[in-house]
């Protein structure tokens, strides 16, 4: 509601506002729309449009059939799913206990350990020594190279820790009086109260693992182990053709452009599917971290 003391907006102002917001939304939506429509277009439609298709004319899912029927893209989707699921679990299993363990000022080693975590914001190793360490501990061509070096993100740690510190301490203290151990308190009392922050941080981690590209460029040479972003880059940006088991379908292959756009769509889809559910918690999660960090 508009407060009574505020001026009524002018027509020109309203129109300008609407135009700008519509433009901003269209700039985001149009590329996604074009990718989706082109991926679902038949060869005839793509030829008629002269390339990318803006207006859909019928639905043809053969491009998706190709990328899901084995070959490099299916393999990469599987690898990325694996890395995302395992990585997110590992990250949460490391970050949440660490944040809880350091949420109580005055506990043994609290100051020193917290400093150890926060100093990483100011001092960072740089590419070459990191590369030497990761390859040095034998992670070359291992999917763990995409997970372990980034398994704990100190920003996420700060967000979770700040949230834990905001929980009413009476609750935890009374559980302690009742004889509950710290692990039990974390699992039974703290976590059920922290679903929002776990969802946000879990999303941040999951997106990071799904998007992993440069680590794969550095550490993964075996193209059987390429994650989807790496395939997207070689396939679309560098213009190579991925191996598909396309001949198995027995019909004429769908146009390369449709396959490319289908890869784009399946790369976007998991993010677009999950994130709206977590979105309403963003402000809380992000701001907590920004303010208290």
């Amino acid at each position, binding site marked *: 509601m508009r407060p009574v003391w505020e001026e009524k907006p002018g027509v020109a102002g309203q129109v300008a506002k609407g135009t700008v917001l519509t433009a901003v939304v269209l700039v*985001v939506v149009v590329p996604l729309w074009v990718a989706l429509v082109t991926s679902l277009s038949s060869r005839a439609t793509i030829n008629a449009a002269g390339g990318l298709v803006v207006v859909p004319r019928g639905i043809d899912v053969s491009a998706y059939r190709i990328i899901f029927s084995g070959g490099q893209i299916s393999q990469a989707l599987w690898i990325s799913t694996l890395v995302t699921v395992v990585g997110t679990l590992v990250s949460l299993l490391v970050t949440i*206990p660490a944040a809880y363990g350091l949420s109580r000022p005055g506990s043994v080693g609290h100051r020193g350990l917290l400093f150890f975590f926060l100093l990483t914001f100011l001092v960072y190793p740089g590419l*070459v020594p990191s590369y030497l360490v990761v390859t*040095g501990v034998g992670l070359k061509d291992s999917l763990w190279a995409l997970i372990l070096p980034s398994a704990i993100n*100190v920003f996420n740690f700060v967000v979770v820790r700040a949230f834990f510190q905001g929980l009413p301490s009476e609750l935890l203290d009374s559980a302690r009086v009742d004889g509950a151990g710290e692990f039990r308190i974390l699992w039974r009392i703290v976590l059920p109260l922290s679903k929002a922050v776990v969802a946000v941080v879990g999303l941040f981690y999951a997106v990071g693992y799904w998007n992993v590209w440069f680590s794969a460029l550095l550490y993964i040479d075996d193209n059987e182990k390429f994650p989807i972003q790496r395939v997207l880059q070689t396939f679309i940006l560098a213009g190579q053709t991925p191996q598909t088991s396309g001949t198995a379908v027995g019909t004429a292959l769908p146009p390369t452009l449709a396959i490319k756009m289908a890869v784009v769509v399946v790369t976007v889809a998991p993010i677009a599917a999950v994130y709206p559910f977590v979105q309403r918690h963003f402000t809380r999660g992000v701001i907590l971290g920004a303010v208290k960090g």
Partner: protein
Amino acid sequence: MTRVAVERRRRAPLRARLRRDWPLLVMVLPGALLLLVFHYVPTLGNIVAFQDYNPYLGDSALQALVNSPFIGLDNFRALFATPAFWDALWNTLSITAFQLVFFFPLPIALALLLDSVLSRRVRTVVQTIVYLPHFFSWVLVVTFFVQMLGGAGLLAQELRQAGVNPPEIMTNPDTFLLLVTAEVVWKDVGWGTIVFLAALSTIDRHLYEAAAADGAGRWRRLWHVTLPGLRPVIVLLLILRLGDALSVGFEQFLLQREAVGRQAAEVLDTFVYYHAITTGDYGFGAAAGLFKAAVGLVLILLANKVAHLFGERGVYARS
């Protein structure tokens, strides 16, 4: 927790505190170990910057490190004598400066615009859509730009059908600065509004009412109430950005370096990648990385100091 409670916790004898707190230490251990191995060990590993590091001088990286001869500052001398390094530094700084002017204010403007939309539903829908690209990888963002603006993209396709020769956008080094900034805007302008929207919601509504009662119009309220309310957040983000002045979207540049060419697209991070990882000249690359980290540290401390001088809280409080 109150100060007294903290003091009471701390005053107990160490053995009793250990008996009480050991589960907390166990919880912290895995995270601390990961940071030790993948953050602090490599940070110490920066000594290869002072070595003629040769990975074949041992069976492991550690052995090679021990066996490689120290050469003092030779790597830094070589680095500073490399014109390509100065080009990369210059490119990095110009991109940072350009984006400070042409990207930094945009999330503020968009946040103000969104904040002025009264319909909650419209706001939520717009927010949901503009946050989305933040979660895309750089591979995906560059792909979308190629698809829309590239030589075979939608724009070129439509222009050709209209009989117009399409301009070169994705491969033109002269306009590369505009292109990368446009990509950053597309990816992050929406996400950037979150912090400002939250800050806007904490501004006391009575201030607006009082200002309006005193005859301040819309724009004067913006200037005298809203912007002062946003100032701490703006300063904080400026400090963070300045401290990160030598980092620009690494993957973004690595992905486009081939299409546009080294002259325009080489930044410090890609310089390290191309002069160390792909060539095996680790000492030289580590020197460049260490230079960047050291300058970054000085920058963030300086920016914070300046913020304190202006009476702002900054990133960490003065203690």
